[in-house]
């Protein structure tokens, strides 16, 4: 997954990457050349007393160091730029892919995970790509080059490389591979501890009210112990890693000296070559170690890459019409014709053969218990998801045959969870209609019963709105969302439980104010309150995704037991409230 994602997105940067490779090669070769020069200082300078040679070789070493630093820094620059570009490209790909999703894909992933996939996960991948290009790439070069140089110094000692490298790789690898599952356990333990604390803080009143302190303390104590034990296990393994590395390094040095001494004694090797060989071995081991430690980042980045690819490989179930049919201008009739909808993977459909017609100038109330499918039904109209059977028609045109922008232009949606975007009151309202004048905005606010509190907000229409609208109350958010739909002056209004956070009086005033503006519009209203339903021209009763009754309030009271039940339970609730 990681490889596939990275390969695809690195393709545009193959030019710079080649340069990077060349630079890393140059830098690595330069750093490999240094010990060999030092060895020659000993053999050809110190041992024979040639001080001129020492000086010349010293200058050479300086020059080589300079080459090395320039090459490495340039390579680092390319690595940083490439990784950042890859991050940008992947982020952008994920963002636009999610942008194309319908509500169906979005809800099957869930917004929070999509958010972290397009931010944190991308950062993970970007980080590992940077590490790979800046550091890991040079490890194999160093390894091959180091082996080559070491062998050039002395073939007779080469078996030491063959022993030390796997020894180090294996021992470090073993420690790391034992650490990885602990890391996972650790993450889980941290999450548990933090979750319990979060629950305790947010639910502090419940804890106090039910005197659950001891239970909570016990629960937390358990999690805290688990966490500590896992952290201890990780800590102990970590404490093992470094001493092991040091022992392998030092033992290798000692071994080189011992076996090298024999070769020197037999005249097969010069003492400078021995020193150089030692440096090479250390360099080789160093790169093995770096590569092994860096490889710890890979499992995690692979998980991230998998999560990203999963998004990129998903395509929207709502396909734009190929040859769009224009929807009629002006008032339109909404018709559901045996509309059926099933969530992917779900056994039974959420909506089953729902049929009804909502005419312009009328209000259709949709009622039903929680989970009956009301929100799903509303979402079919703007194609947040498409029917899996039957059809939804607007002005006689199947919504799937209309252009999406055309369709949306006809609809004013107030969703169950009113959401406002960061900006100002005005910028939010103008999503309904970008060209609306301030007067039109005030008019919409007046109808939505939002005029008073907006006037009191600092700046009025220009009052800031926080992301999600969290800086206004739930009821205010609902009214602003209604105003936003009103600004659009659409042919079809879809109110999904849009008055739930309003008190009964505001609710009544709002509905009264709505009546004149929606005189020609088709209104579909999901509602709980009996008072909202009574005045509807038509009530559709949903139960488990199927229509069990259509008619006026009075008709249904006589004919539909489910409706009677709903009305009674609502009235009971209202009396309590």
């Amino acid at each position: 997954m990681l490889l596939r994602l990275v390969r695809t997105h690195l393709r545009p940067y193959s030019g710079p990457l080649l340069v990077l490779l060349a630079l890393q090669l140059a830098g690595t070769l330069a750093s490999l050349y240094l010990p060999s020069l030092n060895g020659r200082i000993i053999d050809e300078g110190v041992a024979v007393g040639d001080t001129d040679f020492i000086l010349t070789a010293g200058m050479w070493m300086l020059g080589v160091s300079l080459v090395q630093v320039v090459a490495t820094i340039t390579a680092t620059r390319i690595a940083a730029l490439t990784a950042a570009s890859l991050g940008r490209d992947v982020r952008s790909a994920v963002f636009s892919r999610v942008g194309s999703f319908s509500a169906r894909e979005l809800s099957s992933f869930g917004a929070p995970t999509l958010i972290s996939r397009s931010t944190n996960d991308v950062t993970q991948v970007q980080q590992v790509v940077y590490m790979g290009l800046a550091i890991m790439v040079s490890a194999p070069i160093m390894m091959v080059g180091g082996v080559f140089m070491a062998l050039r110094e002395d073939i007779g000692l080469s078996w030491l490389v063959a022993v030390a490298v796997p020894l180090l790789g294996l021992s470090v690898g073993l420690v790391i591979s034992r650490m990885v599952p602990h890391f996972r356990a650790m993450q889980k333990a941290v999450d548990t501890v933090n979750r319990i604390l979060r629950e305790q803080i947010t639910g502090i009143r419940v804890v106090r009210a039910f005197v659950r302190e001891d239970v909570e303390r016990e629960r937390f104590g358990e999690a805290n112990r688990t966490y500590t034990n896992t952290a201890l296990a990780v800590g102990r393994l970590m404490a093992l890693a470094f001493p092991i590395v040091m022992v392998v390094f030092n033992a290798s040095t000692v071994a080189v000296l011992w076996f090298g001494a024999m070769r020197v004694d037999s005249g097969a090797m010069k003492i400078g070559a021995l020193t150089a060989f030692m440096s090479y071995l250390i360099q080789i081991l160093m790169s093995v170690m770096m590569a092994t430690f860096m490889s710890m980042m890979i499992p995690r980045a692979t998980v991230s890459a998998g999560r990203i690819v999963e998004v990129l490989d998903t395509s929207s179930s709502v396909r734009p019409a190929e040859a769009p049919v224009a929807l009629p201008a002006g008032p339109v009739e909404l018709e559901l014709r045996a509309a059926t909808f099933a969530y992917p993977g779900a056994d039974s459909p959420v909506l089953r053969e729902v049929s009804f017609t909502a005419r312009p100038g009328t209000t259709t109330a949709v009622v039903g218990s929680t989970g009956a499918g009301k929100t799903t039904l509303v979402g079919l109209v703007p194609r947040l998801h498409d029917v899996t059977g039957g059809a939804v028609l607007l002005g006689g045109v199947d919504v799937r045959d209309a252009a999406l922008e055309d369709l949306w232009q006809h609809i004013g949606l107030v969703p169950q969870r009113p959401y406002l975007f960061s900006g100002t009151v005005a910028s939010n309202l103008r999503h309904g209609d970008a060209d609306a004048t301030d007067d039109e905005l005030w008019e919409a606010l007046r109808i939505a019963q939002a005029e008073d509190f907006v006037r009191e907000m600092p700046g009025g229409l220009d009052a800031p709105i926080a992301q999600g609208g969290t800086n206004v109350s739930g009821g205010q958010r609902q009214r602003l969302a209604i105003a936003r739909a009103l600004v659009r002056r659409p042919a079809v209004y879809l109110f999904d439980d849009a008055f739930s956070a309003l008190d009964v009086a505001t609710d009544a005033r709002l509905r009264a104010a709505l009546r004149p503006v929606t005189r020609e519009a088709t209104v579909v209203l999901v509602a709980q309150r009996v008072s909202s339903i009574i005045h509807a021209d038509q009530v559709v009763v949903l139960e488990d995704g199927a229509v069990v009754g259509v008619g006026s309030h009075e008709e249904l009271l006589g004919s539909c037991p489910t409706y009677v039940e709903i009305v009674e339970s609502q009235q009971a609730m209202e009396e309590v409230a």
Partner: protein
Amino acid sequence: MSELKSAEEKAAEERRGPAGARRGGPPHAQLGMPTEKSQDFVPSAKRVLGLLRPERVVVGGSLVLALSSVVLNAIGPKILGRATDLIFAGVFSRQIPAGVTQEGAVAALRARGQGTVADVLAAMDHVVPGQGIDFGAVGRVLLVVLGIYVVAAGLQLLQGRMLTTAVNRTVFRLRRDVEDKLNRLPLPYFDSQPRGELLSRVTNDIDNVAQSLQQTLSQLVTSLLTVVAMIAMMLYISPLLAVIALVTIPVTMVVTGAIGKRSQGHFVQQWKSTGQVNSVVEETFTGHELVKVFGRQAEADREFAERNDALHHASFRAQFISGIIMPTLMFIGNLNYVAIAVVGGFRVASGSMSLGDVQAFIQYSRQFTQPLTQVASMANLMQSGVASAERVFEVLDAPSRSPTPAPRHASSTLAAGSRSRTSRSPTPRSSRSSSTSTSSSSPARRWPSSGRPGRARRRWSTSSCASTSSTADGSPSTARTSAS
């Protein structure tokens, strides 16, 4: 995990950097997070150390072990140098015909005009004319060295285990005390501040304290000791070369400081850009259906592209600047290496120093720059750890509801001594509301979280590796970076 976080927590995190980011990772990868300054570093740091009091025996023992292993590791190269000398001497010995004395050979060389070689030979010990390398002696030296290294590693292992035990037990107690305290805080306390703030204190901040304690204790002490030991050994072997090597200290400091200063702005920018991209993503995805139905997609795309580009630029700069530090230090190290090789070569050639000593010296000079940079980078970690600890202490120090139930755990009185100090309770602080939102093009974006305590004191850390989110869960911080 981040998926479960509330907006408030995220905002709190945004100010401090995700705790996960500080968990593990090579030392150079943890920098570059914004860190903030503590209010009262010294007393708070003392109090943090005070948390370790119940573990003082273990901590003290581990310090002794650390000292011993550092000393052993420090004398290793010096003894190894003796082996090189023995080999070198053997090579020379072989060339002198048996029966000729060392002095005789030196005189003969001088007579032939090979004065320099004569000097080298004259300064040598263990010259047994006619004989080759004395393998018995070499073997003994090498065995001693090997023994020293193995013992040093063993001590280090033991030290690491003891320290991690002490730290984790301490953090266990701290967590338990905080949870205990939560149950004894009066309800108004919970209402007096945003929930996310409190949550962040009891989760992220404690995690950060744990992390900083572990890393500073295990690395700061060893690193400092190593630097001292290496300098001592270098001075012992050759004061002249030591002076050359020590010049690198100020040079390293100046260079790291200069790069750090430059990178600071880039990190702040990267942090800000990340936040801005995240907020547009969050907004667009959360309000997905409205984005669609109200035709906001194009606007969202444009906004995203803009911020994504800014992030691209910022993260490139930050990563590049921080990436420069390592090669630069490596270059300084190489300059040092060349200087020592050349000057050392002259000294050996003039007979005033043995080859083995030069070799040992090179090893020392390599080993002392690395812990030096580690000490420097540790400063940031300590700052941020103590700042987190202060926030945790504020929770512990808040007045309990009355009547205070007797503490259930005997040792939950760990922090009780200071509980009476209520002057720094967070309540007055969080009511202070100065709207200094860190970034954001639109003024309202961080409304709910703005005006939190300590904002003005916040600083952004410098130096390497521009990781904005967690790096690999914990590539051991012991990963030494290769030089030359």
